[in-house]
């Protein structure tokens, strides 16, 4: 029943925003909304590994970029069907290429998921700062590979000419926005399901005490690999439509610092223990950044994120969710009757009165 409410309310909120933006008739809202939703997906994905398992990933940008570049590669492939395919396959290739955005997202997810799995195998015996450094190194290595891969544009970057219109909706950005909206709901649902399942408890044991988890028979390596794969795949899925959004992709923007920093800062500011945290953090930071971009300058974005992160780490290390929990603990314990606050807490998989 709670899951039902979750899906209904998330579709309602998304649908209302979509209808509102269409009614205003301003495409900028879709451009801005797309970026915010993309960060919702990134933050949720980061939180699966970073928040639930306690493995801090500094290489989010790499997973995002792998998704974006898998789309670029498939786009280039479609553009040069005659050159890249043997004659016997040209007809078939023309039939399926160019791929539509949802298929590209699935491809991006698979590519980044595999990168995540590989990263997991290579680095998960490392802990704490060492794991973080390894993921940072991974981003540098992958960026170097992409810079030197001519097929996807190398360091020159790649132009993606997106279709001007789509059927039914009309504007292409509205279509991209809807796709990202669905992806965000999928990511949140995945995080929510993980949290309530045995998998989520397994992750929590890894975060709390990995050795004790092993002594309890929790298959820690397997769970960690599941986490890196899922987290990577979702980041790749967030990146896959990006070339079509931006129109021109180059390595230094795809591997940009903003993605790595934001996908860490958003869950940290929102709170890492529940799926609500990354959502709140991403909405808050994403919207502030969009407003700052149009009112002041886009260069100030990272400064805002940095200052907020420092502030939250000092004042509220458990994030906004932690603040809300503290607030609920004071009130919910009155008579043992469920209050709207404790109901809210249960909805968001938080224990009222906990911590």
């Amino acid at each position, binding site marked *: 029943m709670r899951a039902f409410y979750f899906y209904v309310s998330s579709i309602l909120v998304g649908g209302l925003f979509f209808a509102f933006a269409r009614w205003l008739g301003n495409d900028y809202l879709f451009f801005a909304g797309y970026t915010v939703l993309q960060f919702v997906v990134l933050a949720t994905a980061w939180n699966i590994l970073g928040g639930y398992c306690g493995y801090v990933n500094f290489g989010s940008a790499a997973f995002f970029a792998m998704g974006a570049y898998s789309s670029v590669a498939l786009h280039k492939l479609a553009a040069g069907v005659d050159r890249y395919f043997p004659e016997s396959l040209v007809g078939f290739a023309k039939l399926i290429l160019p791929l539509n955005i949802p298929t590209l997202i699935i491809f991006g997810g698979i590519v980044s998921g595999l990168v995540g799995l590989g990263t997991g195998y290579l680095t998960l015996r490392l802990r704490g700062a060492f794991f973080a450094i390894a993921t940072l190194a991974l981003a540098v290595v992958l960026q170097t590979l992409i810079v030197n891969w001519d097929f996807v544009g190398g360091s020159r970057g790649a132009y993606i000419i997106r279709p001007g219109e789509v059927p039914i909706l009309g504007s292409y950005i509205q279509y991209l926005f809807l796709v990202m909206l669905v992806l965000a709901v999928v990511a949140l649902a995945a995080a929510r399901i993980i949290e309530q399942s045995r998998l989520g408890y397994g992750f*929590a*044991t890894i*975060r709390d005490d990995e050795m004790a988890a092993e*002594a*309890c*028979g929790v298959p820690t390596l397997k769970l960690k690999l599941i986490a890196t794969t899922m987290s990577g795949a979702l980041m790749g899925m967030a990146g896959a439509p990006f070339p079509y959004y931006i129109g021109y992709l180059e390595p230094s923007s795809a591997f940009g610092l903003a993605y790595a920093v934001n996908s860490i800062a958003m869950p940290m500011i929102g709170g890492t223990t529940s799926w609500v945290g990354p959502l709140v953090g991403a909405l808050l930071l994403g919207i502030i950044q969009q407003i700052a971009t149009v009112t002041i300058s886009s260069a100030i974005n990272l400064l805002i994120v940095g200052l907020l992160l420092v502030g939250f780490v000092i004042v509220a290390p458990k994030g906004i969710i932690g603040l809300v929990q503290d607030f609920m603990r004071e009130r919910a314990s009155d008579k043992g009757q469920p209050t709207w606050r404790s109901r809210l807490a249960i909805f968001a998989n938080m*224990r009222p009165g906990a*911590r």
Partner: protein
Amino acid sequence: MASSITIDNVDAAYGAVRVLEAVTIDVRAAETVVLLGTNGNGKSTLMKCIMGIVRPSSGRIMASIDGVQHDLTSLTTEQIVDLGIALVPEGRRLFPKLTVEENLALGAFRPTARAMIKQNLEACFETFPRLAERRSQLAGSMSGGEQQMLALGRALMLAPKILLVDEPSVGLAPILVSRTIDKIKELKDRLNLTVLMAEQNFTQALRIADRGYVIVHGKIAFAGNSVDELNNNDLIRKFYLGL
């Protein structure tokens, strides 16, 4: 229903540091065997070797579970837990941010234990009524003694056949040490467990032990076939008790 462990000539090392040298230990069915030794002599490493958390560099660790032989050195930790060997780790190692009930439920993470989670949870609360009172409290917020109870309870959620207890006395007040030791004895008798307990607290450990080994610098310095032998041993008096 006989379950026992045989450790044969086990060597273990962390990198270049040798921690265990030719350790041979025998824990027979339904026995309580104590492993005595001060800090840094390899007790915990031996426990971890049995659980497959640390891999011995040579030697064999065999477990006989209900009469079936298993070579533990070739199994993963999950498989070993599945066989019914439970470890209560040193320093309790609870999941501090999860509730008591969640901690207990996680003791039954493996499929074999999950089927019996209800009975085991009830049995656990029956054995440790205090845990029932605090079932929705965060584990990290309980006292040391309660946490030790929870650590024991978590291991029992597996319905183990062999219980490994690593230093149950760490960080506990003397009266709680004695209560914990009594509890282990009670559980052993009631559930017909085979117990291997590593402990520094000589007198407390010997209260419930059938036999014991003294481990010094990674080697078995003395194997006592009875509590008396351990009590009246010159080596122990000299090296261990400092008398």
